[in-house]
Each structure stands twice: as C-alpha cells, then as structure tokens.
C-alpha cells in the first residue's frame, strides 16, 4: 500500500453491499484506502478490519494495576496509621476487597478510555481527507489514495461498484 498517494478519490455510497464490493476491488489492487460509515457493521468489519482490536490488552493491564494499587493503598496506609478497632486485624484483607474491586474497575475503565483515544487518534483537530458530513448521517464513504495517473481507473472502479458520487481531491 505504499507509493504515490498524491490524490484521493472519494466515493459516496448509499448501499453497504456496493461499498463492500468496491473495497474488495481496491484491496485486490493493493491501494491504500479509508472507509467511513455512520454505524459499525459486522460485514464491513470482516472486510476492512478483521483483526481483533488491541484495546483489550490495555484494559487488562489497567485492571490488574488497579487491583494491585487498591490493595496496596489500603494495606500500606493501614500499616502507616495502625488503628485497631474491635480486635480486628490491622490488615483486614476481606474489608480491603471492596477497595481493590472498585479500583480494578476504575483503572481498567480509565485505561480503556486512554486506549480508545490512542487507537482512534482522538481528540483530533485536523479534518480528515475525503470526509463528508453525509458519512455520519446516512451515506458510506470510501477514500482511496492513488497517483494522479490512476485516478481515472479508481473512479471507474467506484462507479462500476455503485457509487452515487465520485470526486478527486488532493492526497490521502
């Protein structure tokens, strides 16, 4: 998918099956592309991004760290300020489970948020090349990076797949 991507051919699709056909053709030609969709969809996912998202690894790491931190906070601070009540042990592990449990969720959740931002590249102040406001409403978008010489071929590919509109813009 390397090479000259000085031009971006933007296709607007109404129908998902047309879009999927176009994506398959673009993949066959080993061109670089982006897909915009108003909704997530499993069929589209199978074609565009069949791998599993790495977000879950970050989540698991955050959750384990939260569990350790929760118990560590309760244990270490209890040892620092020993307050014996009702003949209970200074380090009452069952009582500390609540803190460990809540921090597992808290840290896991915040790690997930961080991973989401990182992998989705948000917040982003830059406009995406080829993006059209209709892609958040009811249309699907396919943006293909190619050289100036091959724009005609890519346009033809999209039109033959059923694109409603095709236009050429500067680089992907």
């Amino acid at each position, binding site marked *: 998918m390397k090479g000259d991507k000085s031009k971006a051919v933007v296709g607007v699709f*109404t*129908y*998902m*099956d*047309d879009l999927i056909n176009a994506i398959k053709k673009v993949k066959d030609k080993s061109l670089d592309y*982006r*897909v*915009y*969709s*108003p*909704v*997530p*969809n499993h*069929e589209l*996912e199978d074609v*565009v*991004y069949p791998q*599993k*998202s790495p*977000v*879950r690894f970050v*989540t698991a790491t955050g959750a384990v760290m939260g569990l350790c931190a929760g118990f560590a*906070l*309760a244990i270490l*601070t209890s040892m*620092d*300020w020993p*307050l014996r*009540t009702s003949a209970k042990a200074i380090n*009452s592990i069952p*009582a500390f489970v*609540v*803190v460990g*449990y*809540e*921090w597992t*969720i*808290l840290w*896991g*959740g915040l790690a*997930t*948020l961080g*991973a*989401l931002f990182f*992998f*989705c*590249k*948000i*917040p*982003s*102040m*830059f406009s*995406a090349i080829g*993006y059209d*406001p209709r*892609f*958040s*409403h*009811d249309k699907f978008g396919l943006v293909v990076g190619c050289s100036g010489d091959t724009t005609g071929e890519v346009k033809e590919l999209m039109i033959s797949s*059923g694109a409603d509109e095709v236009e050429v813009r500067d680089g992907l």
Partner: protein
Amino acid sequence: MAEEKKVDYALVNRLVLKMLEPPTFGWYVLLGICLLSVGIGAFCWSRQILYGIGASGKSHPAMWGFYITTFVFWVGIAHSGTLISAVLYLYRAKFRMPIYRLAEAMTVFAVLTAGLFPVIHLGRPWFFYWLMPYPNQMALWPNFRSPLLWDVFAVSTYLTISATFFIVGLIPDIAVARDAAKTKFRKILYSICSLGWRGSYTQWKHYTSAYLLFAAFATPLVVSVHSVVSWDFAVSIVPGWHATIFPPYFVAGAIFSGVAMVITLIIPLRKVYGLEALVTEKHFDAMSKLILVTSGVVGYSYLTEFYSAWWSNNPFERYQFWFRPFGHYAWAFWIMFTCNVILPLLLWIKPLRTHIGFLFVLSIFINIGMWFERFNIILQSLSRDFLPAQWGGYNISWTDYGILFGSFGWFGMWMVIFIKFFPSVAITEIKEILPAPKRHGGGEDH
C-alpha cells in the same frame, strides 16, 4: 420489529436532531422552575451552614435522616441507567436502544445529585475531603475497614465510569449533530465535544471493542455500588439494618426505582418531540415487565425482613418490625408498601403495560414509594434502637423539605440542559438495529 421497518437512517437523524432545535418558551419555563427549586435548596443549605446542623430535623438518636434517605434514593435512581446501558448491552437486548441514552444521562446526573448529600449531611461540609486518602500533615489515613469509606470508593468509581461510558457513547452522535449544526455556536460546541470523530472504520473497530469492555466493567458496578451502599447499614448492628438480605434487596430496589424514573422522563419527552416511531409500545411493555420483576423482588425482600425478625427470636428485631407497620411512622411504611408492592401488581394486566398515562402515574408513585423505602429503613430503625431510654424521632424541618425539593431541581436542571444540547436518544445505536441499506438482498438486521 414492525415499527423498525418504517424507520431508516435519515428518519432517525431527523427525529433526534429535531430535539436539538433552538429552545422554545416552554423549555425556558421548565429550566426556570428547576433553577428556582435549586435556589430554594441552596438557600436552605446556606441557612443550615450558617445556623448549624440543627436547622435540619436531626435529633438523637436519628442522626441519619432526610439527607441520607435522599442520598440512597438518588444512588438508586442512578442505578438503572447502567443496568439499561451496560447489562442489557451485553445481553444484546434491543429494547434498550431508544431509552439507554436518557437512562445514562439520568445515571450521571443522579449520582451528581446523590454526591451532594453526604456533604450536606456533614456538620462542617468544608471538611468533606477528609474522606479522601491523601498524605496530610496530621499523618493519619482514613479507616479502610469502614463501609463509609467503601462508599466513597464505590460512588466515585461509579460516577467516573458511568460518566465515561455515557460520554464515549455520545461521541459518534455528537459528530452527527456537528455535521448537521446550523449555528456557529453549535458547530463549535459539537466540534469540540465530538473530539474530531469521523467514523472511519478503524475508529469504529476500536470504539466497539472499548464500548464492550466499558459495558463489561460497568456491569459489576451495578451490583457493587448499591451493595456497598447497603453495607453502610447491614454491617452495623442496629435492629432493622443488620441483615444479610440487604445487598440484593438494595440492588433490586435501585433497578426498580431507576426504571420508574426512566419512564417518568421518557414519556413527556416522547410526547413533546414526537418520538413515537423510536420509543414504541414494545419498549414500554419491556420496561413494565422489568418493573414487575423488580417489584416482586422488593416485595419478597420486605416480607423476608419480617420473617427473619420473627425467626431470629431477637426482641429488638421483632419490635422494630412491629414498629414499622404499626408505630409512629406507620404512614410511611404503608405508603411504601402500597406504591412499591401493591400498585405495580396492576402491570399483570397486559393493556396497562402499554397504557402511557397509567405508566406515567405509576412511575411517579413508585418514585415516591422508593423514597419512603429508604425513609423507613433509615429513620424507623434509628428511632427505635436497643434501649427505650434513647428512643426518639426525627423532627422534619422545612430546611429538609427545601433541600429535598432543591435536589429535584438540581437533577432536573441538568436533564433539561442535556436534552436541549445533546442527543438524548442514541442515533448510532438505533441505526445499528435497523437493517443495513443494501441494493441486493434487503439488508441484514444487526
């Protein structure tokens, strides 16, 4: 789903974005009423700060009174938002789609409201931060064996995760609003709040994965938060509190009251903004069934408490459960029992499960009943402790009423502002359950 066949992506956009059109006179009136009640609540609280905690009805031995009752009530209201958004998401229950955004907003704003009450309850509210574990010059730490501290962790985690879940769910919908914004102010507001979301497929892939994980994390929170709140009571030895049934009883009660509040909020919204195509009778039928089930659990818990008290042969427990239906606050018990156990039984009648007017009235009765449930647990138990010599009561003052009234205004204010500025029905997720538009072969229903 027959109703969904008539709905397409464009109609979903149109119906939901219509709610974001410039505010009407009625909206300003509603906001004004909310602000007025917030003002009344703030005045009462400032008076309490000025004159001391005695301005409320607290008197020995009922030192937990109106404020903790209201705290538990609002935490309960907050509960079903996460149930509807997270638990039902994991179960792929489609009926959650049109209602979950409002339920999540309700969760976040109800926790914001609930969080005020432990602070209002304090004699010196400016020291509220002493509950936080932070290194300080006194070289001491809070007691991690106390359920009150567990509450700090549980409620703050719940607020953080619920707010995160809520905001993450909003991002793609705010992007829709951004792309349709007609005024410069809204364009800037939504551009900032959508964080540059474009809906590229790479983004969707990570988004759906993260959303599933948020749901998986939020689900145990549904169980843990109100269980922890119940331990504020159950871990003590006060008659009427010291019961192992409290965690499931509190969780079921919270879901019960939360679903009722969702119905209270969604019915006027549906009517005013013409959302009948999105929020259909099937959704009300599903919510009614949820109310019926949780009402059954709550009713069973009430009866189990009486049975446990009798079976324990403990005179203090037995007296407490005689005092509740026949003592000084018997009226509160019977309001609770009628609203939470008897009236919901009407939902066994199928036509009433989809009768909008009936559901609206019933949901208000349930909200009242659930507030009284907490009133009974907290106040009745504290009023009749072990020693008759220290029995007492709670002298409800107008400061209590004012702050309670103010809390509804505070909650309402956030809801009214949210509904006008952000999509209160989930655009993307409703689109997800519609058949994907296809030239050949109709479409796949996800």
